[in-house]
């Protein structure tokens, strides 16, 4: 039994303990501490994050003559680090005072902790998979574990969960078909055999396999047009669960896609595949899918009036950046894509936790029913601020570094339209996150929120830790780029040449240490001018305000939140046509029509004929 087995065993034990003891008072803390132990176990194999060699699990099974194996490399380690880190933050957040209130409102905090630890275990199994068969098993485990987390809240969450599982099952079918074809072609499920045989695949095989796998794994990632399930499913999960799901869950799709499509089938071949009647290669097509995955969900987020939905829609959009970076295939772009997985996870965890803290105090996430909370919850505001600066990709937070790498790669590779598309996404993010922070924390404080206080420390501490990580990894991106370079090497990319402060190349460098130093120096000068110059400012009440001659009273709502970007919506509002929803519902209609017709045929008119047709078709499918 080696260190990898220890890690997986601890993870399994965590899930078992939190499952069996889910009614116990202290189970939240126990789960959080066990997750910390998992984190330490992961650190014991941290050599993987610094260019170490693959660790094979001692466990090997043979099922129906097919060997199943598990192993960890730099890429698995990188994703596992984010998974366990996100779970720890959410678990500690949920363990203390939050759990009491959740219980009082009819929730079962133990079940939530169990669902999260089960998710961690299944994700680790998926990340450790060493062949296509164990990959598929891990994939299914992850799908069902995340369903458990999604439907915990009941009610509308169940509907979203069911929607998710329909998509996930369809995706799994597509993956299974892909694996079936590969087995037919190579006679093996081993990664090595696929990698060796991939060079002999015909173009048709490459195209069919890539599309099957990308569609299947893309469902989990929320890649357009398979994204409709995600926002609701993540947003309706109880707060800390949303933070965990939002931070890492859909990245499992990216991980699997990286392994099968990028590493084994080989993206290099996709550049060679031209799509008929266009100038595009298969890779260009995928890059455009990534670009639209950035733009559409981001601008859908801009329209949301529920903070949780707004964040969840951004989660889908940010996945597009990761795809885009990795599809660039060069050291800089792919590093940007992988780095964004980490950065985005920290941002999203901080944001969801902060919003959960707001909901904890105000009982609503409706952006039109909040406002002015900064005076009451300053530290939560700080966490949200750090998170939105990171999510929007503005210096000095970490989100800027990963996006910078992607932008730079797009410029140097000469892809103007894709570059503009990513920037349009970023600008939309800035607008949308400002709306988020303005409508919750700035503006007028509502009368009913006059007496609320900051959330307790058991919730604040994990939030502040995540916010600190966002800042530190923005200040010294080299810390994470270490792990990214190992993950790149594991994938077969040329690792990025990096420094502690960023990258240094002949065609444009980035040094965040200097940049942050100068930026905070600038803030220092600004503060000196402000506090040093002029009289001391006098604080006034929020209603002591210029209202064009009217007197303001506390019962008058004097806060601008509804239809926040009226001028923009006047222009682009008509572009929101719900095309994807329309596609989804027409697909559902077609399927139900077909099933209805066959049912009629079967029940009422020609049962014998129907049986004959089905039998013939099945025989043709299996034998022919």
């Amino acid at each position, binding site marked *: 039994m080696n260190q990898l087995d220890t890690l997986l065993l601890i993870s399994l034990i965590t899930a078992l303990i939190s499952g069996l003891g889910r009614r116990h008072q202290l189970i939240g803390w126990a789960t959080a501490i066990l997750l910390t132990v998992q984190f330490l176990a992961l650190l014991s194999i941290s050599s993987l994050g610094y260019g170490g060699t693959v660790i094979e699990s001692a466990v090997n099974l043979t099922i129906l003559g097919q060997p199943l194996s598990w192993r960890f490399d730099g890429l698995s380690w990188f994703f596992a680090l984010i998974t366990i880190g996100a779970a720890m933050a959410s678990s500690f957040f949920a363990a203390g005072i939050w759990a009491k209130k959740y219980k009082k409102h009819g929730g079962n905090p133990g079940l939530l902790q169990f669902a999260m630890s089960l998710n961690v275990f299944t994700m680790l199994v998926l990340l450790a998979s060493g062949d296509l068969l164990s990959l598929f098993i891990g994939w299914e485990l992850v799908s069902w574990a995340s369903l458990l987390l999604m439907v915990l809240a009941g009610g509308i969450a169940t509907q979203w969960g069911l929607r998710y599982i329909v998509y996930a099952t369809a995706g799994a079918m597509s993956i299974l078909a892909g694996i079936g074809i590969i087995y037919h072609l190579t006679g093996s499920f081993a990664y090595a055999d696929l990698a060796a045989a991939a060079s002999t695949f015909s173009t048709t095989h490459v195209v069919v396999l890539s599309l099957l796998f990308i569609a299947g794994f893309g469902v989990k990632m929320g890649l357009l047009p398979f994204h409709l399930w995600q926002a609701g499913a993540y947003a309706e999960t109880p707060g800390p669960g949303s933070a965990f799901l939002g931070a890492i869950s859909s990245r499992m799709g990216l991980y699997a896609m990286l392994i099968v499509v990028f590493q084994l089938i080989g993206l290099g071949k996709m550049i060679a595949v031209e799509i008929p009647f266009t100038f595009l290669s298969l890779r260009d097509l995928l890059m455009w899918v990534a670009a639209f995955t950035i733009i559409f969900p981001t601008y859908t987020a801009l329209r949301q009036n529920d903070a949780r939905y707004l964040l969840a829609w951004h989660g889908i959009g940010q996945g597009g950046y990761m795809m885009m970076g990795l599809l660039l295939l060069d050291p800089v772009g792919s590093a940007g894509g992988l780095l964004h997985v980490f950065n985005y996870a920290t941002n999203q965890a901080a944001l969801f936790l902060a919003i959960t803290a707001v909901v904890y105090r105000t009982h609503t996430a409706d952006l039109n029913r909040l406002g*002015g909370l*900064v*005076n009451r919850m300053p530290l939560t505001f700080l966490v949200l601020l750090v998170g939105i600066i990171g999510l929007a990709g*503005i*210096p000095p937070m970490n989100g800027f570094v990963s996006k*910078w790498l992607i932008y730079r790669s797009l*410029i*140097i590779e*000469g892809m*103007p339209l894709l*570059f*503009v598309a990513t*920037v349009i996404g970023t*600008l*939309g993010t*800035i*607008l949308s996150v*400002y709306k988020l922070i*303005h409508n919750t924390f*700035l*503006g007028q*404080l509502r009368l009913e929120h006059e007496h609320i206080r900051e959330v307790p420390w058991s919730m604040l501490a994990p939030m502040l830790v995540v916010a600190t990580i966002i800042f530190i990894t923005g200040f010294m991106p080299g810390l994470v780029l270490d792990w990214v370079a190992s993950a790149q090497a594991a994938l077969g990319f040329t690792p990025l040449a990096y420094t502690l*402060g960023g990258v240094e190349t*002949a*065609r*444009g*460098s980035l*040094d965040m240490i*200097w*940049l942050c130093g*100068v*930026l905070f*120096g*600038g*803030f*220092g*000068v*600004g*503060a000196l*001018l*402000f506090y040093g*110059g*002029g*009289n*001391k*400012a*006098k*604080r*006034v009440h*929020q209603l002591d*305000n*210029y*209202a064009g001659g009217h007197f303001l009273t506390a019962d008058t709502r*004097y*806060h601008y939140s509804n239809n926040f*970007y009226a*001028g*923009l919506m006047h*222009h*682009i509002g008509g572009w929101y046509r719900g095309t994807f929803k329309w596609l989804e519902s027409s697909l559902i209609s077609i399927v139900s029509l077909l099933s209805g017709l066959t049912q009629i045929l079967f029940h009422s008119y020609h049962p014998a004929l129907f049986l004959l047709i089905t039998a013939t078709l099945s025989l043709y499918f299996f034998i022919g």
Partner: protein
Amino acid sequence: MQVTLLTIMEVILMPIVAFIIGLFMVLMMRKLAARLQRRVGPPLFQPLFDIVKLYGKQTQISHGMIHDIGIIMAVGGYVAAEALLPVPGMDGIAAKGGLITLAYLTMVPSLGLALGVGQCANPNGSIGISRALTSMLAYDIPFIIVIFGVAYQFSSTNLVDIIATQQAGGFSTWGISEMPVLAVAGLFAMHASLGKQPFEIYIAPAEIATGPMVEMGGKFLGGLFVMQSFQLYTASVLYVSLFLGGGENWITFLLKSFGVLAIPVVIAYLFPRYRTDDLVRLVWKWPVMLALIGIAFVMN
């Protein structure tokens, strides 16, 4: 160590230079406006007097912590951005950041201002910010296409390299003669980014009571004044660096910077204001189209 010390010196000097030049740019703007309106205009040190006056006001009204921090971020962000913008003889940390970083760093002051205004709890201010961010979404799209074109043309995102290449080759390698279409689009986008007429939708005194500035007085408004001088400086110097070969020496540098800024300023005082959606339509149509054509030339 020598290099580090020199860089730190430059990083301190560059914002000071920028501030002084920025003040004169404000003066030029007001003088031009006055001449176009057949007035005399303010005296030489009026911008400085204004700042001193605003800071010296007896009553200073703050609407809370973030209101203060917003002003600090607005000024501080630009102080930092100036260190990324090379001037003759000083490169600062331009090589450590580059063009994209500068573009994103200049969003920090806007974000700071937006946060500060948000805390004032005045809908006029919030509407102003909503309009300002919308117009940023409008003008940043052509602006970013222009940045792409320039970076691709010089195959670098490093401003120092971009300026050096232009200066080595003389006028025929300047951005404006290599990429004239992009230069026009860039000027258009720069004009919109300055928020002057006809794009001053987020100030709009007659509709939303000067928008972001509605609750600003005393040193808060003084901070915004400082921010404006930096903003004028940054926009024109960036344009000069991208298209007019930067400054070979201080004289040509100042001539070019003031000359470039004069164009949008003159247009600003000759034309009235647009509505928000008109701005979006106009900016997404003309400069974006021009910039895309410009890129097509660059990439062939």
